[in-house]
């Protein structure tokens, strides 16, 4: 119960972090799972669940306001349940949890209209003190609770589900293989989403260059990123040379 409460508070902070200060990107699964791992004393599980979910989710965070599976909560629950029953069980529960909460996100973004209408009233009255109070104390409540409550309930009452899932896994190894392969290919969605917002047809050569650097030249990711900056600089220098004289 105590752990459920602490993790619910952590879920609340993760959501608040992206709404406000964006200090640690707590809403990304790598961070939400890692800190969950620290809280429950199983850092390795947090790293595994967080890294796996993060790579699946990569690319879905590309434009603001989009509704996406809630990998934040997925990371927290996945790490917690993974610690109890093993990595496969954790991942297998994290993904459906993230999908289920997609709908909750739509609901809370809708319900937040309450604040804008109350704000209109404060503005009509010229009541800036009341408005400030609303912002500081309540403006994040719907968003925060919409994640904190599911985390609390799942951890406080989810034990039976976890036991059932983990028994099923134990007797059906083929299921593990299915989950593992699916986890490996899900990052394709993230990259496809990134590519969709980029003008691939206009600059196909750059995509190929990146592929060659990894697949044939075996460069590490950081190296590819640095090379990419260099290539973009050279490209723009040549392209805009005439304008700058």
């Amino acid at each position: 119960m105590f752990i459920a409460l602490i993790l619910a508070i952590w879920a609340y902070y993760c959501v608040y972090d992206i709404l406000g200060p964006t200090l640690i990107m707590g809403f990304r699964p790598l961070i939400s799972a890692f800190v969950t791992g620290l809280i429950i004393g199983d850092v390795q599980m947090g790293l595994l669940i967080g890294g796996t979910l993060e790579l699946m989710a990569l690319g879905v965070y590309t434009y603001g306001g989009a509704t996406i599976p809630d990998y934040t909560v997925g990371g927290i629950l996945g790490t917690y349940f993974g610690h109890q029953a093993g990595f496969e069980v954790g991942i297998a529960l994290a993904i459906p949890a993230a999908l289920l909460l997609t709908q909750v996100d739509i609901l809370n973004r809708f319900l937040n209209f309450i604040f804008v209408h109350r704000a209109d009233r404060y503005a009509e009255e010229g009541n800036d003190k009341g408005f400030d109070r609303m912002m500081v104390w309540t403006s994040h409540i719907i968003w925060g609770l919409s994640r904190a409550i599911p985390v609390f309930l799942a951890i406080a009452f989810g034990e039976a589900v976890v036991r059932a899932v983990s028994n099923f896994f134990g007797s059906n190894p083929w299921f593990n293989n299915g989950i593992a392969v699916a986890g490996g290919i899900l990052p394709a969605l993230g990259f496809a989403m990134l590519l969709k917002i980029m003008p691939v047809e206009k600059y196909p050569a750059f995509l190929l260059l990146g592929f060659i650097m990894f697949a044939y030249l075996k460069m590490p990711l950081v190296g590819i990123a640095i090379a990419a900056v260099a290539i973009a600089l050279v490209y723009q220098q040549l392209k805009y040379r005439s304008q700058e004289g």
Partner: protein
Amino acid sequence: MTTAEVTSRKLTRSELMRAFWRYVFLFQCGWNYERMQSVGYAYTMLPVLKKTRPDPEEFKEAFITNLNFFNTNPVVGAPLIIGAHIALEEAGASLETTEGLKIGLMGPLAGVGDTLLWALYNSIIFSIGSVMALNGQVLGPIFVILMVLFPYLAVRYWQFTWAYKQGANIVTQLGGGVIARVTEFATIVGLIVVGGFIPSIVRLTTSLEWTNVVTVRGEEVTQTVNIQQQLDAILPYMLPVLVTALAYWLLKRGKSPIFVLVVLLLIGFIGGALGIFAPP
């Protein structure tokens, strides 16, 4: 306007910072489908408006106006608009002018901010951090946190103060193709990085083998052909490329990300359960 009025409108440094910290701590709280970041924007500007519009009626009007629809990238974009808006308020600009500034800049800056920060910078640091985390290194998430904590605050503070100094000039400063050029730069870096990340992060290999019994000089010999090796000989990482291409094609055809997610889950799960694909 007399000189005395101009000086009374001028914000002190602490008043300026008050607006900045309001922006930092609550900018997107209360985000809603109807007017998106409007309440956070009004919250940021209230102490400024209170100072620049001492007349209660004028203040009220500005309060109402600043609750209009607003949405841009909260980290790269919003501080520029807020900083320039504050400078215009100090200069005694009308509400039409300041609303024009907000509406004119929020769209283009959302595009630049989302591409530069969400799509590019974050994808790079989180890919690197995740790969480290999967190798069991605690440094993975810590690296990401460090790459967010200070750079984000610094870049927000820098935009805010720069835009405040520029004031109305910001529109000309950001015009002249600067936004287009920055976006192009980000696009090129992004495409190269994604080109490298697809084969390194998407994992799909087949465990199929093709066995063939041939008779060589009267003896039966079983030949086993490893399909994955054959694929690698044609193009390394062929399956990850194909599956990413499939996801891209589905998205381009207007399928929702959730639909594509389910398709990929099914392909992976069924293929893995039947033993067509090898677990990574």
